[in-house]
Every structure is written in structure tokens, then in C-alpha cells.
């Protein structure tokens, strides 16, 4: 599979004789010195990364970190100073104006922080804009625009004007305008930052649901780590125009590349991000129904617990036996555990967020996959430790 977007050694430097800035950066001059001594502002400093088709990439950083510059370089709303940007293998930095317009029309849909809807056009006409630019026939573009408005749940508002809509609805129109083109890539520049928290969460959920249906390659800019962790398959963290870390949400959380990233994740509510899988332990000792109570008691003694999980031959979870019942059973001389297996025990899936584990009252919690196969076990201590530490180790 070829990457959808490949960015190689991308630089953006603002100011006169910007090219000379690259050499200075390579010599190791810092951003501040470049600005003070040469009047050059560094937007992006040697960024390289790639995105596979259908991937959700989140670029995160504080304001001034270069994330907005980066996303605008992809469709050359900002002209990169140096480097390559390959979209489906075509280097867009070499395209002339006409070819660039073609790429913008067909490959990219863009959603903006302040919505940027055209106030003089109705919702439908806004959604049609990109198709109109492409020269699509009126009936055809109205049909496609309505379809995409339907996708964001605003079909009934087609004839309204943007100013009549709430912020959340306006951004849905923004999204519909981008989706109407059926682009391969969605560029979303702080798309939800201007919305209030409740609407924002709702939009995030909808975007994820939408993504699972339309399967676009998405580049999403945000300054909010919670949002990044929730949405991204991959997260890029930027600082001063440099990519300081790239990884999955869990990689970012569990092994931050430096102090900057660590600072970022300090305040993350890990319970929303980490999953059962990250805090579970391997269930080292299990027992089988055919094992007698004596064997079970022996295994419990070995690992120092007062209960043990019972699985079948395929490691499918059957339940748990407790030490008291096992010893009573042993005294009665029975040879099978069947009679004392407690089958009704809390089970969660590996992907269950930690947050949901708190509502469970009896521990340990058993982690099983869809086939009920035993994956691991979470004891209360491990859960609390993970929370206290802020991240798993």
C-alpha cells in the first residue's frame, strides 16, 4: 500500500531570502536567533511524515508551533520554502497554478476553524461551492450537495442562510461542503475549536462515525490533546515548527519523547484514553474444570491469591473459583470443580476505556475478547496505580 500523503524534509520560512534560512537551520541556529539576527520566522523546520489511505492523522501543538502552516502547505495555501509533498505519488510543490487548482478541486476538502461559510449563499449553495467550481451541472451538484448535507444531518436546512444556524450546525455545513466533492483527503484546521465543549464532543463522535463510513484520509489540526487522543490513529506533536513526536495515542501517552510532550500529557484524563488492555495483567495461572479442587488450591497458593480463573481447553473463560469453596469441595472428596465455578463475573473487552471500569464494583475484572477467550485480568490495585501514575508503564 502506497502512502496517501508523503511529506519529505518540508521547510517553511517566512521573510526575505527565506531559502537562506534553511542553511542556517541546518547549521543548528535556533528559531529565536534566526528571527533576531536574520529577520526570518520559522514556520516548519524539516518535517517528514507519511499517511496511509484511510488513516486519521492528528497534528497537535500549541499556537505558533507550525501546525496550521503545515496543513496549509499540503494544498499550498501557503507555499513551502523547500521539501516535497507527494499526494498519491505526485509532488504538488512542482505543480503549476492550473494543475494545483485541479488537485485542490479533486483531492482535498477543507474545513476551517471559523467555518468560513459564504454568508451570501444558502446552506445548499455553500455545500455546492466546490462542485460549482469544478463546473458540475446544476442538477448534479444540487443532488450531491444534498446527499452530503444529509450525511451531516442538515438536509432540512438547505435553504437557510449560514447566519441562521448555530455554530455547530455551521461547522456541519463546512463539513458537508468539503464532503460534497467526495475528496480523498479531508483537511480539518482546528475544525471544532470554536465550538463549545458539549457540541464539540458530539461533533467528534459524529466525525468518527462518519469516518468509519466514508473512509477518508483525514489530517486534523488541534491544540487539544484530549481531542487528538480521541480522534487520531496517529498523532504528530509539533513544537517550534519541528515534529517532536509521531505515534499512536498510546505511544504518545506511554512513552513521551521529551519534556514538551510530557508536559502536554500531564493534564490528560487518562481514564478516557487508556483502555483495559493497557492496565491488565496476564492471567498467569488458570485452572481447568477437570482439575480437582486440590490442584486449584495448589495453584492459588503458588501465586498467592484467594481465587483462580477457570477456562476451557480453548482458553475460553468459564468463571472463577474461590479458595473457601475449593477447600470445602476438597474435604467432601469431589474431583471436579464444575459445581463451585462462579460464572457470573464482570467481563470487559480489551478496548474498554478505564473510565468504565470504575463503575464495576467487584474485582478482579476479567478481560476477554469477542470469543470469550481470556486475555488478562485487572486487579483494583493496578487500575489505581495506572491512574495515579498518569500513564501505564
Amino acid at each position, binding site marked *: 500500500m502506497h502512502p496517501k500523503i508523503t511529506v519529505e524534509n518540508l521547510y517553511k520560512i517566512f521573510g526575505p531570502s527565506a531559502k537562506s534560512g534553511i542553511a542556517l537551520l541546518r547549521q543548528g541556529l535556533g528559531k529565536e536567533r534566526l528571527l533576531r539576527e536574520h529577520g526570518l520566522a520559522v514556520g516548519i523546520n524539516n518535517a517528514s511524515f507519511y499517511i496511509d489511505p484511510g488513516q486519521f492523522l492528528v497534528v497537535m501543538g500549541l499556537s505558533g508551533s507550525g501546525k496550521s502552516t503545515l496543513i496549509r502547505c499540503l*494544498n499550498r*495555501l501557503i507555499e513551502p520554502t523547500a521539501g516535497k509533498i507527494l499526494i498519491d505519488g505526485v509532488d504538488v510543490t512542482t505543480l503549476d497554478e492550473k494543475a*494545483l*487548482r*485541479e*488537485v*485542490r*478541486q*479533486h483531492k*482535498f476538502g*477543507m474545513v*476551517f476553524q*471559523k467555518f*468560513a*461559510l*459564504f*454568508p*451570501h449563499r444558502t446552506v445548499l449553495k455553500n455545500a455546492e*461551492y*466546490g462542485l*460549482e*467550481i*469544478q463546473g458540475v451541472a446544476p442538477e448534479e451538484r444540487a443532488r450531491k450537495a444534498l446527499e452530503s448535507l444529509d450525511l451531516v444531518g442538515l438536509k432540512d436546512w438547505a435553504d437557510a442562510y449560514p447566519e441562521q444556524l448555530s455554530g455547530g450546525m455551521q461547522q456541519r455545513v463546512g463539513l458537508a*461542503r468539503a464532503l460534497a*466533492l467526495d475528496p480523498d483527503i479531508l*483537511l480539518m484546521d482546528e475544525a471544532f475549536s470554536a465550538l463549545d465543549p458539549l457540541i464539540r464532543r458530539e461533533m467528534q463522535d459524529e466525525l468518527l462515525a462518519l469516518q468509519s463510513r466514508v473512509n477518508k484520509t483525514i489530517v486534523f489540526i488541534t491544540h487539544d490533546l484530549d481531542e487528538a487522543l480521541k480522534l487520531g490513529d496517529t498523532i504528530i506533536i509539533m513544537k517550534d515548527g519541528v515534529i517532536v513526536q509521531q505515534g499512536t495515542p498510546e505511544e504518545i501517552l506511554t512513552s513521551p519523547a521529551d519534556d514538551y510532550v510530557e508536559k502536554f500529557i500531564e493534564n490528560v484524563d487518562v481514564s478516557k484514553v487508556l483502555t483495559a488492555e493497557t492496565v491488565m495483567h496476564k492471567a498467569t495461572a488458570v485452572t481447568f474444570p477437570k482439575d480437582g479442587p486440590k490442584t486449584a488450591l495448589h495453584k492459588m497458593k503458588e501465586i498467592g491469591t484467594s481465587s483462580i480463573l477457570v477456562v476451557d481447553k480453548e482458553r475460553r473463560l468459564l468463571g472463577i473459583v474461590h479458595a473457601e469453596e475449593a477447600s470445602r469441595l476438597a474435604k467432601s472428596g469431589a474431583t471436579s470443580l464444575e459445581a463451585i465455578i462462579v460464572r457470573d463475573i464482570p467481563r470487559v473487552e480489551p478496548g474498554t476505556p478505564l473510565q468504565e471500569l470504575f463503575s464495576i464494583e467487584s474485582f478482579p475484572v476479567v478481560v476477554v475478547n469477542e470469543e470469550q477467550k481470556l486475555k488478562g485480568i485487572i486487579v483494583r490495585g493496578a487500575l489505581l496505580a495506572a491512574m495515579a501514575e498518569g500513564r501505564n508503564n
Partner: protein
Amino acid sequence: MEMPLPKFPLGAMVESTIDFFTEHFAFITKGLSKITEVGIEALVDGMLFLPPWLLILLFTALAFWLSTRRIALFTLLGLLFVWNLGLWEPTVSTIALVLIATLVAVVIGIPIGIMAALFNPVHRVTMPILDFMQTMPAFVYLIPAIPFFGLGPVSAIFATVIFAMPPAIRMTCLGIEQVPADLIEAADAFGSNRSQKLFKVQLPLAKGTIMAGVNQTIMLSLSMVVIAAMIGAGGLGGEVWKAIQRLKPGMGFEAGLGVVIVAIILDRITQRIGRDARG
């Protein structure tokens, strides 16, 4: 006391330039002037061919259609009053002159304004020229107009256009420049070319400001048309001019009031169009 240095021959230079143009090009401008004059006369005659009450009703209907019931009522009463004062003919010719001058100013001014907004060099050249056009006393334009176009309404229109065009240019430029940058960015992001951006985004959003400029152009035309009566523009300005020469304050006041009524009608109607465009 006179300055010890010899006088810089600015006036002589301007005169010889104008003389040069008059000598070599006046036959063109005079020819144009004749044609235009025929056009103006036809328009005025056409308007006067209709009985005043019918034309007044037409204007009222137009006011009602373009703006509000109140303005339509004012148009009706105002024009009836002007007719009653016996100023119908000069009023019609003034309206015709203003409309023609405005049309010419707008047809030339809006494209220049667009160019100035889109291309920086044009902007830098245009703005000082506009400052010059607006601050030079309007009477001065009348002087070169005569050798080029002769006495009469065409000279008046020429001077009026020069005097009244700057707001059309300025406001067009301003309106386009004021289109929010994020909308321009959105238009670019969807791959719009220059003309798509201009006609689908910039001009529609600048419409309110442009109409405000057109409104100002109309008002300036009206004020200039009165001044232009000195070179034979006729109309209400001509009546004012006659009143001054004969020292008849009553007659002057009546004609002046006619100008005011025409001004209010044109102003309210065009303002209204501008406001609607913004919504």
C-alpha cells in the same frame, strides 16, 4: 512681496498641453460630444414626451419596487410638488444628466476599483490620482471641458464624471479588500480561479459597500450638475444660475428645493438597494 525666483510656468504648461490635445484630438471629442448630445436629448425628450403625471407614477412605482412604501410616497408627493412649481422640465433634464453621469462613472469606476483591489501596483497609482480628483475644486474641471466638448450637457457630464467617480472606485476597492481573509482562503482551498473567486465570492460580498459608493457617486453627480449649469448644462442648476444672475431669491429657492427633492429620492432609493445587498 514677490518671490525673487522666476515663476514656475505650471499654468502655461497645462495650457499648452490642453491646447495640444485640443488641436489634435478635439475633432474626435467634438464628434463624440455631438453624438452624446443627441443621446441625451433623446432621453430627455423621451421622458418629457410622457405626461408628467404618468412619469411621476412610474418613478413612484420604481421607488416602491426598489425600496419602501414611505420612500415611494415621498417620491410621489415630492415630484408632484416640483411639477406644481413649474420646474418639471428642468427636473427631468437634471435627473437624466445625473443618471447618465452616474452610469458612466460606475461603468468606468467599478472595474478600476476591482483592478485596484486585486493588483497592488494599480492600487498605488490609482489612490493618489483619486485624492487629486476629489480635492481639486470642481469648477476647474469645467474649464478644459469646454475646448474638448464645447458648451452644453456633454461638457457638464464630462466634468461631473471626473468629480463623481472617485467614491465608486474607492468603495469598490474597499468592499473587495474587506472580504474576510478566511473566505478567500476557503475559495482558494476549493480550487477557485481568479474570476470564480471574484464573481462568486468577492463581488457578492462587496456589493453593499459598492452600492454605498454608487450612492455617493449619485449625490456628487447631483451637486456637480448644478455647478455645471455654468457651462450650459441646463436643468435645475440652470434655474438656480438664472436666479443668481437676476437676483431673484424666491426663484432660486424653488429651484434649490427641486434639487433637494431629487437628491432625497435618489439617495433613499440607492441606500435601500445597498442595505438589501448586505443582508
